[in-house]
C-alpha cells in the first residue's frame, strides 16, 4: 500500500503523462502494458477521455487494453462508446465490450440484441451467450430471428442454447427445424433443447 502511495506521488498525472501511458498500452511487452494500466487506473476519471479515444484507434492491442481499463473505472462517459464497440471490427475490443456491458444486467438487453445484426462474426457468439445468461425474455425474438437467418454454425448452436436457457417455448418449432442441420454441434443442441423445453419446461436450466 505504502509502495502504491509513493509510486503515485512520484508521478504527476498531467495530460502529457496520460498520453505517454496510453501509448505504452500498445507495447508488445505485457509488463509495460500492465504498469501503464496501473498508473492509468490511479489517474481514474482524469484518464477516461484519453482512454475512450484510445479505444477508437486502429491498434487492436491499445483498443483492447483501453476498454479493459475503462471497465474498471466508475464513470458513465464510457458507456456509450462501449456500446459502439460491440460493432467494432476489433474482436478483442468487441469481446471486452460484451463482457463489460453484460455486467449491467437486463439494462443492456436491447443494446446487445441490436448488436446481433451489426457485430463481427467472432463477437456475435459472445453476445448470444450473454443474452442467454441475462435471462431477459426480450431477447427471445431477436435470438429467433438470428437463428432463422444465421449461416455461422457456432452462432446457430449458441442461439439454440440461449433460447433453451430462456425457456423459449415459442421457439420450439424453429429449433426442431434444425434437427437435420449439417453441423453436428447444432444437432446436439437441438436434442438437448427439445428434451429440456418439452420434457420438463418448468425446470430451471
Amino acid at each position, binding site marked *: 500500500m505504502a509502495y502504491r502511495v509513493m509510486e503515485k506521488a512520484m508521478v504527476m498525472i498531467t495530460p502529457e503523462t496520460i498520453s505517454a501511458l496510453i501509448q505504452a498500452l500498445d507495447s508488445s511487452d505485457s509488463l509495460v502494458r500492465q504498469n501503464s494500466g496501473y498508473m492509468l487506473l490511479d489517474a481514474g476519471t482524469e484518464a477516461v477521455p484519453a482512454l475512450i479515444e484510445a479505444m477508437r484507434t486502429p491498434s487492436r492491442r491499445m483498443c483492447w487494453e483501453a476498454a479493459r481499463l475503462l471497465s474498471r473505472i466508475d464513470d458513465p462517459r464510457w458507456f456509450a462508446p462501449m456500446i459502439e464497440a460491440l460493432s467494432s471490427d476489433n*474482436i*478483442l475490443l468487441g*469481446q*471486452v465490450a460484451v463482457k463489460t456491458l453484460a455486467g449491467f444486467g437486463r439494462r443492456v438487453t436491447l443494446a446487445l440484441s441490436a448488436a446481433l445484426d451489426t457485430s463481427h462474426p*467472432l463477437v456475435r457468439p459472445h453476445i448470444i451467450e450473454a443474452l442467454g445468461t441475462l435471462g431477459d425474455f426480450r431477447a427471445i425474438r431477436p435470438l429467433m430471428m438470428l437463428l432463422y437467418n444465421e449461416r455461422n454454425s457456432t452462432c446457430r448452436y*449458441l442461439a439454440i442454447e440461449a433460447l433453451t436457457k430462456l425457456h423459449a417455448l415459442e421457439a420450439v418449432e424453429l429449433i426442431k427445424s434444425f434437427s437435420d442441420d449439417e453441423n453436428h454441434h447444432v444437432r*446436439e*443442441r437441438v436434442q438437448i433443447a427439445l428434451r429440456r423445453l418439452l420434457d420438463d419446461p418448468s425446470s430451471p436450466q
Partner: protein
Amino acid sequence: MFKDFVFLYVEDDPLSREVMNVIMRNAMGVEALTMFHDSANFIERLRALPQKPDIILLDIHMKPDDGFALLKMLRRLPEFQYVRVIALTASVMNEEVEQLRTSGFDGAIAKPLSIHTFPDLMERILRGETVWHIA
C-alpha cells in the same frame, strides 16, 4: 510469458483459426504459432516444422483424422510422447466429454474461445496444470 513458447493449432474452421490468431498474437504476444487447416499428413507436417511445438491444440471433429486419432499418432512417437496436447471442443455431449478425459489429453478447453479466459488457461497449462474448462 508466452512469447518463448511454440504453439501448433490444428483446426478446420476458419473463424476459430482467426480468433485464435488474434488472441494469441495480439493479446498474448505469442510469436511462434503455426496453424494446420486440416489433419491430413499430420505427423509428416509436424516433423517438418522448424521448431517442435511446446503445446499442440487440437480441434476434435476434423477430417480426415479426428483429434482422438491425432493424439494416438502423437503418443506413439517417442519425440512427441510428452508434448502437452489440449483438445478444443464445442461439444456438450457427456460421452464425448468423458472420452476426452480418458483418452490421454492433457486438458480441454471449450469453444468459442474467449479473451477473458483463454490466456489464463494457457498460463496454467504452461505451468504444468491439467485444465478441463469444458461443459
